[in-house]
């Protein structure tokens, strides 16, 4: 173990080679630098998305209702969705922590295709720029919602074509990352790093990468068809020309439901790293967690039409998809039980990463269980297109993936930047985050049950009180986010130097100095036991 780093030595963060400063970063093929490029760009887009979200909540208060028009409101929820989905949660953990830690966790010097990896980041940025351009050019910001449902997306005068093209480019970035990770895991594991000695985060990245490869092309072609339809009028989704909008919904959700698992699986993987480290004991049910990742990827690809129970499919199709939806809850529950069992009789050390990871489990359970509710046909018909769906979705995506992202960032931050953040400030940020989150989204669940439809600019007086609670919650949540980010940004620049292994972790990244050097390992390690064997010192050896 090497924890004695001098303050002059900042590993890969120090520029090498002819270029300095920003250019050295923009041309680097070091997986760690690319991970950090993704981190900062992603957090920037995330905060834009948060800003739009807070504005959407604000106009539901009487005082601020006239801040925007109903048309702008439509644009706001579309933009919020496009930014959060395509620029934050989908690339999310794989692009940041996958890039940074996958090679380190399997004992490699870099990913299989380092230049392709940098190209993926440029695709991501190009897609992001096009998405932002689509807001201000053409007929104005798209107003279809992030799902671009036909036939409205074919008819609206807003700039859907460009926005859809942006999503296509972003899909490209995601697909190339998937190809890169699968090849890396197959080809670059260190000697002795067998499949079942890989840390679980790698398993989750592996299953995620397969979904990225298998599902994203279907979205790509669907979006191409929307563009062709808008430019040339080929008619496939247009009912007036003999096309079928339901076909659009099928093709869209064949990607976009598995995409939900692209978002959540790496989050679950990160939690599976954090739980054993802070319980000081091996993860409970390693194989079960590894295989549940793969089975979520498999079964999760067969449940897409549960988004369409009210779209006019046959009763039989509805029942089949309802059943499959219930089945996908099983591997997810396996993971939750395993995390909790890992804590059992562990020597628990409640540090900020664990604190946020436990919050993830709590919020994800609410999100998961409300998901099972909607898998039931009778409830689904009642709550479809209400705030209940919005609440559920945010519990999974924000409470789940978002909080796992925060937990993973807290866990790996000292390794990535070689500096430690203020634990007090991070815990202080947790209170407004947690309270605000639940006011906001549990409030939405309740409003939805009462019948408040989603995406409405106006609401009936009976929903007044609920909307006020929800909006105040959004302020608290935003406050928590600001404290959290300020604490980390400050720490990245000025924080006290972190040790090589501040948490007592036993996977390979903790054998390296903080931050790691370029190409990670002086010498490729040889692995002779599993990843979480604390008694043997794990991969520490």
């Amino acid at each position, binding site marked *: 173990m090497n924890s004695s780093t001098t303050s002059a030595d900042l590993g890969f963060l120090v520029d090498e080679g002819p270029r300095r400063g920003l250019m050295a970063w923009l041309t680097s093929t070091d997986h760690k630098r690319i991970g950090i490029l993704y981190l900062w760009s992603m957090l920037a887009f995330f905060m834009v998305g948060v800003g739009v979200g807070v504005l959407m909540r604000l106009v539901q208060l009487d005082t601020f209702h006239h801040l925007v028009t109903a048309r702008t409101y439509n644009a706001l929820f579309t933009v919020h969705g496009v930014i959060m989905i395509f620029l934050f949660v989908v690339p999310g953990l794989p692009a940041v922590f996958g890039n940074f830690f996958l090679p380190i966790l399997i004992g490699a010097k870099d990913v299989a295709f380092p230049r392709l990896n940098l190209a993926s980041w440029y695709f991501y940025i190009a897609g992001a720029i096009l998405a932002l351009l689509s807001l201000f050019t053409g007929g104005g910001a798209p107003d279809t919602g992030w799902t671009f449902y036909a036939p409205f997306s074919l008819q609206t005068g807003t700039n859907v074509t460009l926005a859809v093209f942006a999503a296509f480019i972003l899909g490209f970035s995601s697909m190339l990352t998937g190809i890169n990770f699968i090849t890396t895991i197959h080809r670059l594991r260190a000697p002795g790093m067998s499949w079942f000695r890989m840390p679980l985060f790698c398993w989750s990245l592996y299953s995620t990468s397969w979904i990225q490869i298998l599902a994203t092309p*279907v979205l790509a072609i669907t979006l191409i068809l929307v563009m062709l339809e808008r430019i040339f009028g080929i008619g496939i989704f247009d009912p007036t020309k003999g096309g079928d909008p339901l076909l659009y919904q099928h*093709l869209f959700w064949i990607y976009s439901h598995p995409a939900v698992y692209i978002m959540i699986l790496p989050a679950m993987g990160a939690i599976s790293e954090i739980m054993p480290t802070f319980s000081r004991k091996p993860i409970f049910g390693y194989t079960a967690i590894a295989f549940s990742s793969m089975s979520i990827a498999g079964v999760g690809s067969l449940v897409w039409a549960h988004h369409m129970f009210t779209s006019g499919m046959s009763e039989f199709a509805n029942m089949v998809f309802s059943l499959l939806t219930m089945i996908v809850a099983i591997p997810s529950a396996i993971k939750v039980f395993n995390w909790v069992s890992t804590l059992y009789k562990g020597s628990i050390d409640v540090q900020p990463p664990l604190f946020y990871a436990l919050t993830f489990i709590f919020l994800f359970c609410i999100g998961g269980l409300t998901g099972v509710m909607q898998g039931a046909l009778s409830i689904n018909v009642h709550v479809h297109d209400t705030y209940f769906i919005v609440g559920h979705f945010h519990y999974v995506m924000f409470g789940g993936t978002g909080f796992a992202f925060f937990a993973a960032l807290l866990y790996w931050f000292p390794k990535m930047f070689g500096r430690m953040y203020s634990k007090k400030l991070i815990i202080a940020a947790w209170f407004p985050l947690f309270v605000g989150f639940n006011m906001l989204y549990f409030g939405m669940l309740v409003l939805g049950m009462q019948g408040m439809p989603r995406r409405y600019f106006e609401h009936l007086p009976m929903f007044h009180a609920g909307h006020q609670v929800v909006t105040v919650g959004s302020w608290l949540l935003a406050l928590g986010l600001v404290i959290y980010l300020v604490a980390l940004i400050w720490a990245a620049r000025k924080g006290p130097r972190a040790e090589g292994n501040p948490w007592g972790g036993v996977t390979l990244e903790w054998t390296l100095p903080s931050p790691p050097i370029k190409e990670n390992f002086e010498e490729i390690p040889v692995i002779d036991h599993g990843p979480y064997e604390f008694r043997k010192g794990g991969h520490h050896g």
Partner: protein
Amino acid sequence: MVEHRDDFGSKLGMWLFLVTEILLFGGLFIAYSYMRARYPVEFHHAGAELNATLGVTNTFILLTSSLSMALGIVAMQRGQELWSRILVGCTVLLGLVFLCIKGIEWAAKFHHGLYPDSARILTLPQGERIFFGLYFSMTGLHGLHVIAGMGVLSVMLVMMLRGRIHPGQYTLLENGGLYWHLVDVIWIFLLPLFYLAA
């Protein structure tokens, strides 16, 4: 820095990329099957408008180009670099012939007023409109892939001339060949679905 080289890894990456390409067209094949099941008679009538002779000719051309590609790689493996360059060059030229025939075919369709949203198309029954919509989308996207493939192989040619690809290191050429074969295979499915639908 030591040059890291993993030929198996780069081929694995290429195969994974081909999977995404197949799935990209897969979405279109789903759309085609669904629409054909919905409008069987109209697809039959509309298919009769296509020129099967040109379609079959193009199939032969593309298959021949795949052959010359495969032979080009064999030549490279055997160290016959000149032959390899000639054969890969032939592949690119055959791709060009394919595109020309495709262009003649499309031009004839446009001449008869058959293109998406044209006045004539809008008078046709709905199923026939959808047939032509799919025809232009699928052969068009395939055509773009042919152009991309020709671009890739031209880059390979330049790299061969500059000695970057040689009998000791030709994985890139094999990957380019894989891509070209994929373009070929997709066409083999497009032929019966459109030209032989009648």
